[in-house]
């Protein structure tokens, strides 16, 4: 194409010619451009390295642990006395503590979180939602150490006024506080799931004369069930991995019991106890740290996989 406007005369070169000319000089740029995907791939593989790092670290020391303590003793033992003269390494008390606290947390978080989600997505006006949501998110942003402090110095003494048998360190209070911590997570994920239910569907039901409650119960929740259940599972996973709240508020008694008024130790709190006290290499207790961490890792991994499986499965259905 021939250029016949001012720029040609003034600069002697047309834009097109200029561009052509610049293109000749682009060799370096092309090499740069070509190397970008590789470079970014290397960056992306850091996350894979992290996983490998975690698994390798945990696995190698765990294997060492199982050379000293038979796997069956570890997984079926109900007594954990790592420091005793005659140490016993049964992980069941820790699993019990972890599951108990998680169940308590979910008993608090699941209904309250879900109801909050329903309120925010179905009932609240835009204005109210705009105020409540960030406030709830604030709840999620509070460091767990603060929750631990709160559970220990406020919730436990409060509960003890109603539950006389409650010990000063117990699994109930951190469980409840953990539940409060998880509420925003469940509320927000479930709300996302419910708001992503097509408005058309909601309108369809409203158009038939359904009340909001009926729309929610019969249309929105069934349609968003995948997301809701996935949020529960993620909540459980979060509770299982929570550390500071239980460390501070539940003591370090390795009880194998169903009694939630008693002190119990979770897997995470055990790790803190052992690393805080004795992180020196070589002893059996040191290796037990990795075995417990591995168990914890597997637990949460399973939960996460389950959450994803659930949400994917339901998504396929509709």
């Amino acid at each position, binding site marked *: 194409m021939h250029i016949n406007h001012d720029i040609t005369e003034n600069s002697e070169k047309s834009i097109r010619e200029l561009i052509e000319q610049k293109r000749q000089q682009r060799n370096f740029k092309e090499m740069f451009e070509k190397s970008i995907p590789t470079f970014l791939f290397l960056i992306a593989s850091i996350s894979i390295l992290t996983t490998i790092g975690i698994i390798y670290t945990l696995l190698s020391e765990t294997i060492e642990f199982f050379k000293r303590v038979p796997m069956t003793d570890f997984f079926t033992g109900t007594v954990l006395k790592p420091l005793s003269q005659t140490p016993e390494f049964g992980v069941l008390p820790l699993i019990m503590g972890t599951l108990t606290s998680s169940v308590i947390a979910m008993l608090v978080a699941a209904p309250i979180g879900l109801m909050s989600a329903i309120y925010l997505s179905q009932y609240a006006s835009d204005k109210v939602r705009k105020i409540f949501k960030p406030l709830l998110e604030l709840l999620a942003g509070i460091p767990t150490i603060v929750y631990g402090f709160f559970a220990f110095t406020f919730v436990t003494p409060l509960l003890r006024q109603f539950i006389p048998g409650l010990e*000063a360190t117990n699994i109930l209070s951190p469980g409840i506080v953990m539940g409060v911590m998880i509420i925003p997570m469940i509320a927000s994920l479930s709300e996302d799931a419910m708001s992503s239910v097509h408005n058309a569907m909601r309108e369809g039901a409203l158009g038939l004369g359904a009340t909001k409650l009926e729309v929610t119960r019969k249309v929105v929740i069934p349609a968003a069930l995948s997301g809701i259940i996935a949020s529960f599972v993620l909540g459980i996973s979060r509770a299982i991995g929570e550390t500071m709240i239980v460390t501070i508020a539940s003591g*370090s*008694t390795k009880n194998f019991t169903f009694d939630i008024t008693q002190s119990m130790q979770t897997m995470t709190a055990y790790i803190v106890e052992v690393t805080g006290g*004795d992180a*020196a290499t070589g002893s059996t207790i040191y290796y037990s740290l990795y075995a417990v961490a591995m168990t914890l890792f597997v637990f949460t991994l399973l939960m996460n996989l389950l959450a994803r499986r659930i949400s994917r499965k339901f998504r396929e259905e509709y």
Partner: protein
Amino acid sequence: ACGTEKNQSENSNATELEGSVVIDGSGTVYPLMAKIAEEYMINEQENVSVEVSRAGTSAGFKKFLVENGTDFNDASRQIKDEEAAEADALGIEVKELKVALDGLTFVINKENDWAKELTPEQLIAIFKADGGVKKWSDINPEWPDEDIKPMGPNENHGTYEFFYENVLEKQDLADTVNLQQDYSTLVNLVAEDKNGIAFFGFGYYVNNTDKLQAVHVDFGNGPVEPSLDTIAEDGDYADFTRPVFTYLNVNHAADKPQVLDYAVYLMNNVNNFAGETGFAPIPEAEVEENIEFLNGLTK
């Protein structure tokens, strides 16, 4: 980030030192060591960083007895033979520095108005496996028919070992004894539980006299209340009095001037700060002896 403005003139005789001194070990000894470390950094060597941690005596030894380990390990019991052997094997020369005296204190809930005075035998029976004591009424039929809740620091702690070895004389602890990593947990447990009874260093008791009361122990000559007066190697509370130590890595002291300097400062000041942190002082003669040893390292 550390300023160096003022102390040139004040400590003109002392040489400016820098670097770090790493201390770990006993939680019981921690308050005393932290106090002295702070004073040292404020008044003596502003550019030396003294880091004090408190993993517990035994745990601390594991960090002390490795290559490039900690410089000091605080201990609420004496170093064990195995640990000393380990040090030999690693070529670490260890110097024991006795820093204060502590009284193993048994604490009970404020509301507990029956078990205020106990004998060592009764205490042992409460904590020992098969001691035959489960309820208060097992000790004295007039006392409440309620389960005793014994507790104490866990095996990471020198206090546990002192109790296990010197009081229980290596008899097994009852399964019901609630062993905790953190002293704060123990304080709260007893403060909140009418039937609780726990043992730990005197310091954790004197700071919580509003929440706890100490058991007066009857060693045979009438009940003795643990206090800075009774806790002494020849005091009334002598049977439950134990020395607390810090162990110095002498190789480090020889290599790092700040470690040695700190050790000297430490020994010069232990008795000044013992009282306010809940310890009884040690005889001056022992202090002198150690300072002499340390001065011998300077050359």
